[in-house]
């Protein structure tokens, strides 16, 4: 049976297996494909992080779990099973890939401690709230091309299967759901009734709020350039000729000047959103013990853990979609090359189809690259201090994102009015002007920071009536 025909039948409203309405089956299938992928890949992700970190730190890491060394027979108490000859004295290596499963089993059987003085309902809801956004985020991600090669209209298999919902507000949906991710952390911190946890929760809320702005504005730059908030439209826009002039290469936004700035900002912001190092202040081990999940043990802790990794995975997918050309294998317009070089037409057409059918794999590869980058950063950078975190978010990323936004706007207007060359001139000019302005602002800010120091701004009320009363323990 042809998979495409079956799926098209479901989409058209035909009956699915067991007489369940086709659209319903299709919807469940779409959701399962995303959630299933996230669920199955998260353990691998954990393994990859541990191994990669080890290598970077000149260790070995978990490499043994699941390694089976065979003898000549398996001996039980009363009988033996002889093994086939080719297994004698052989080792089967899994490179420690089974380690996450062992970890999972361990966590599952650990004692589940619930502290006595917690806010029970909120305490139990919090891990669920941490996990939910990570899975829901994938709702608008297209992991396959929306159209088959050599066609401008939507077609093929993937446009039915992905994204789960191709809504007009795709990118806003990502922002909205990722902003909800903070609740799990905040509530866990609050409900634990533990000072360290509360500090973690407070830090998380401040951090998420600060970095959401830069994230939103950097995505707005891209949305402005695309002219739509739809994720599929964003992928389509990246399949256009590079810089509007090089038809052989795709216009991945990472390659455009404004897109590069936006990509850097967005990348930093998603690291902060997922509370990963160097932005892991909410769970800073050496200051806050484990921050918001100090009081969570066993599977409840595992849920937090999984939520964090799932969010990493899906946000890497968002990055891949918005800046790295989505499910395209390489930034090459095969269809154009096939037309331009008829001699090698067959090869290019073949590549175009390969590009189409391997789309999901390419997408996964980009996610993996993103995750690797996350891990690399974790191994490289020390944790930020709290004020550095705030300064980076508010004084660097947000202004840079807004300046970038202005540049994109200017570029679009100038392109509409003066043509592509004018657009480029406007963009470069705007970058230059904003750069000079930024230098001046930076100088002024530096002066004003010094001045503020002299002024002695105290945000906390230092008056004596609120200070802690010291009680002499001998008298009390």
């Amino acid at each position: 049976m042809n998979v495409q025909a079956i799926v098209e039948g479901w989409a058209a409203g035909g009956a699915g297996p067991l007489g369940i309405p086709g659209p319903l089956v299709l919807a469940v299938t779409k959701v399962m494909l995303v959630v299933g992928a996230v669920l199955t890949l998260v353990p691998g992700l954990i393994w990859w992080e541990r191994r990669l970190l080890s290598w970077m730190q000149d260790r070995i890491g978990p490499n043994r779990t699941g390694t089976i060394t065979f003898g000549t027979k398996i001996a039980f108490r009363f009988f033996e099973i002889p093994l086939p000859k080719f297994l004698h004295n052989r080792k089967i290596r899994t490179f420690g890939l089974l380690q996450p499963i062992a970890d999972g089993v361990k966590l599952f059987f650990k004692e589940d401690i619930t502290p006595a003085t917690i806010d029970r309902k909120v305490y139990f809801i919090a891990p669920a709230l941490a996990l939910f956004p990570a899975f829901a985020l994938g709702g608008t991600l297209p992991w396959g091309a929306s159209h088959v090669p050599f066609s401008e209209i939507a077609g093929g298999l993937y446009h039915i299967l992905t994204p789960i919902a191709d809504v007009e507000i795709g990118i806003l949906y990502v922002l909205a759901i990722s902003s909800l991710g903070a609740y799990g952390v905040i509530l866990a911190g609050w409900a634990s009734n533990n000072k360290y946890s509360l500090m973690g929760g407070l830090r998380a809320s401040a951090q998420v709020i600060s970095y959401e702005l830069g994230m939103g504005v950097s995505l707005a730059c891209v949305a402005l350039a695309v002219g739509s908030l739809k994720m599929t439209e964003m992928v389509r826009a990246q399949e256009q000729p590079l810089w509007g002039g090089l038809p052989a290469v795709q216009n991945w936004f990472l390659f455009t000047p404004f897109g590069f700035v936006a990509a850097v900002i967005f990348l930093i912001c998603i690291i902060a959103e997922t509370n990963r190092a160097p932005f892991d202040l909410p769970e800073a081990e050496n200051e806050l013990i484990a921050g918001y999940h100090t009081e969570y043990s066993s599977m409840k802790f595992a849920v937090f853990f999984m939520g964090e990794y799932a969010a990493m995975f899906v946000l890497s997918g968002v990055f891949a979609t918005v800046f790295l050309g989505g499910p395209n294998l390489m930034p090459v317009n095969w269809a154009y090359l096939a037309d331009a070089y008829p001699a090698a037409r067959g090869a290019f057409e073949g590549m175009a189809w390969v590009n189409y059918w391997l789309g999901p794999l390419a997408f996964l590869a980009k996610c993996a690259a993103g995750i690797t980058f996350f891990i690399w950063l974790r191994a490289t950078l020390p944790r930020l201090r709290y004020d550095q975190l705030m300064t980076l978010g508010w004084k660097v990323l947000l202004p840079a994102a807004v300046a970038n936004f202005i540049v994109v706007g200017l570029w679009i207007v100038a392109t509409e009015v003066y043509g592509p060359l004018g657009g480029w001139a406007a963009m470069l000019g705007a970058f230059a002007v904003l750069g000079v302005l930024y230098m001046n602002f930076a100088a002024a800010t530096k002066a004003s920071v010094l001045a503020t120091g002299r002024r002695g701004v105290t945000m906390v009320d230092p008056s004596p009536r609120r200070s802690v009363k010291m009680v002499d323990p001998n008298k009390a």
Partner: protein
Amino acid sequence: MSGNQIVFIVLAAIACIGAAGVVVFGDNPVRSALFLVLNFFVLGFLYFTLGAQLLGISQILVYAGAIMVLFLFVIMMLQQQSAFLRSTESDGRGPIAWLLGATMFMTVGAAVLAPLGGVTGSPILDTFGTPQSIGKVLFTGYAWPFLISSVLLLVGIVGSILLAKRKF
């Protein structure tokens, strides 16, 4: 009963529970804030059912996602100092407030809900509530109020900085 009505009733019920939870159940400010989050979140879905995608997602993004996080931040900070936000003593005002509130609700409800009795769906255009149509309106007919609202935000920012300045 049509599917629309069922969806609406379910969402509206959750929204009402959320709204009631903010003020009625218990006196824990964090829980009240959480109910408010629930209310905002479901309100976003109500907007979706009306076809107002952008409004709905903005509701979730701005209110449920950003503003309520700030609310929680403030509540958690302040609760370290004052555990008792609500006095527990009861006087005669409670029943009177219930009575007046119920009267008000019924009066307004009778006037407002009656004409909406037969409505089952919203007759809207396909482009209603899309980012494109809202953007067009915002940057043409409503450009001036749009600018004013940006000044409103600026006032808020500068004002809060003024209030956060040092004491002498």
